[in-house]
């Protein structure tokens, strides 16, 4: 088994070394993820410490501008927070929501896919018809409508983990279908293999067969979809936050920062929007490129 994984790894590594685009994308993604994880350590200021904020420092341009302040490398935003620090913390929120949504969608989709594929019958019919219906609408529209409904119906101005959880729920629910379809297809093939028949013959229960025997054999394509979905989840989160139905302003994500900065674009404070926008663009692009490469390298059939 270890030999097999090692061989797979080396194939993958070979393809990786031969693809400069994938290497650059991976390096950029890793750098951004590292920056987000280490935000409390490397951020020059703590943007959420009110005692460290001075409203007199607001709207300072980047340090290289004549009016800039060397304390704030990329300038400050409307409340006098250091933009670089706010962006690092924002990146944290964006990535956290992105990862959480993908994991939620993955668990939901894989579970439903396993059930649909293995149980068949009316359960399969119900799940797959629901998937068909959802496939009619684009993911971002479903997330937007769900987040909008939650936002419109929940208490206004609620803070804490509630809005974030609802956001993860909205985004995750918008793309479980892909996982369910892929897993169901694989399960239909695997369920008739000899090892599954043998497991059934010695009396192992259906859930145990699904989780311990079938699941490991259908996870490959699922992980590829998850990587590609991560970029999409980050984009959806940023879009919802920009529209004001995403992350609450108390813990700004990149999208929230762009939303705030957008109000000041015309009064000349371009940096508040454009720097978070650039980070978001680089993040989405690099995760996308890395996912594309992974898909081609691991499973050309998925195309």
């Amino acid at each position, binding site marked *: 088994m270890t030999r097999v994984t090692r061989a797979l790894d080396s194939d993958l590594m070979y393809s990786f070394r031969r693809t400069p685009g994938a290497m650059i994308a991976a390096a950029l993604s890793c750098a951004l993820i590292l920056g987000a994880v280490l935000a409390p350590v490397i951020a020059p200021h703590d943007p959420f410490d009110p005692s460290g904020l001075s409203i007199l420092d607001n709207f300072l341009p980047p340090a290289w501008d004549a009016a800039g302040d060397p304390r704030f490398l990329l300038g400050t935003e409307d409340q006098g927070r250091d933009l670089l620090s706010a962006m690092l913390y924002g990146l944290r929120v964006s990535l956290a929501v992105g990862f959480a949504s993908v994991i939620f969608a993955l668990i939901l989709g894989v579970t439903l896919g396993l059930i649909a594929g293995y149980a068949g019958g009316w359960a399969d019919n119900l799940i797959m018809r629901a998937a068909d219906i959802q496939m009619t609408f*684009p993911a971002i529209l479903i997330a937007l409508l769900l987040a909008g409904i939650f936002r419109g*119906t929940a208490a206004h101005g609620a803070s804490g983990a509630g809005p974030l959880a609802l956001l993860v729920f909205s985004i995750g629910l918008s793309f479980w279908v892909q996982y369910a379809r892929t897993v169901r297809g694989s399960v239909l093939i695997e369920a008739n293999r000899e090892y599954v028949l043998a497991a059934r013959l010695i009396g192992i229960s259906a859930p145990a067969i699904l989780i311990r025997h079938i699941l490991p054999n259908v996870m490959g394509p699922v992980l590829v979809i998850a990587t590609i979905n991560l970029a999409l989840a980050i984009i959806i989160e940023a*879009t919802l936050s920009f529209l004001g139905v995403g992350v609450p302003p108390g813990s700004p994500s990149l999208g929230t920062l762009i939303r705030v900065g957008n109000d000041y674009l015309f009064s000349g404070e371009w940096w508040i929007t454009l720097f978070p926008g650039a980070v978001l663009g680089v993040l989405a692009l690099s995760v996308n490129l890395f996912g594309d490469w992974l898909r081609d390298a691991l499973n050309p059939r998925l195309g």
Partner: protein
Amino acid sequence: MISFLLSRAVQAIATMLMVTLIAFVLFRYVGDPVNQMVGIETSLADRAKLREDLGLNDPMPVQYARFLVRAARFDFGTSYQQKESVAVLIGARLPATLELSLISVVFAIAAGVPLGVLAGLHPRSLAARAFMALSLLGVSLPTFLIGILLIFVFSVHLGWLPSFGRGQTVQIGGWSTGLLTASGWRSIILPAITLGLFQMTLIMRLVRAEIMEVLRTDYIKFARARGLPDRIVHFGHALRNTLIPVITVTGLQIGSIIAFSIITETVFQWPGMGLLFLQAVQNADVPVMAAYLMLIAALFVTINLAVDLLYMAVDPRIRIGRAAA
């Protein structure tokens, strides 16, 4: 063939029933409709009477059926926020969204097809590679970011084009159009590019792939062997055969364009249905939200059904395959 038709129709109806049910639950159980309609000094007896008159005490299936009948007549109730009929509000915003979507589709086709042909005929040329790289950027970047960048460059920096609103509009019957004034046209350029960019890259990549595919076929070789000039081979023979998938994809994208206009309309403060929906969300204006939800769902279901029917008309394999199954 009939079973295929039936299954599609059943699916469309199921989708609409599900969406209307969600809209109904929203409409009926989120916030109290009576509280939204009366003032604080209304007596409890008056409230109870109003509740009875509105039929809010009837069994739920009866209420849902009534809701469906009303929705089918475009009676979506009264906006909590603006105290006006939701149908009138949406009707007033409809032209803005439809005009924006139309110009976006025109832009996507007018720019996407020639660029795709160029990239397909000369895949190794510098221009083709540059456009492919740019299209990757267009696919990866979120729509709202592209809108902000366009505003920054063309409105803030260069000052060429307006960044918000529709400009001057002309009223023709019940339809307010911005396409008859110069300021209306100037206003629509940036939002239409923002909204249509994704579809443009999609069309461009599709045309490029199709052209490269078609150029390898025998009938192109024969056309060349007959000594036809390149121009006729490329545009008369190759391009014409790529257009069927392009038309299909574009048709399928119309729903997306209208849905995605929520984002573009917010960036550019374009007074369309998307902006209305987003404002309704921010004000918890449930009747507007419910109506928009049903409208968008109806749009998508209709488009998908139409595409399925068209496929069936065009492609005999679907008819035969389904009939045999």
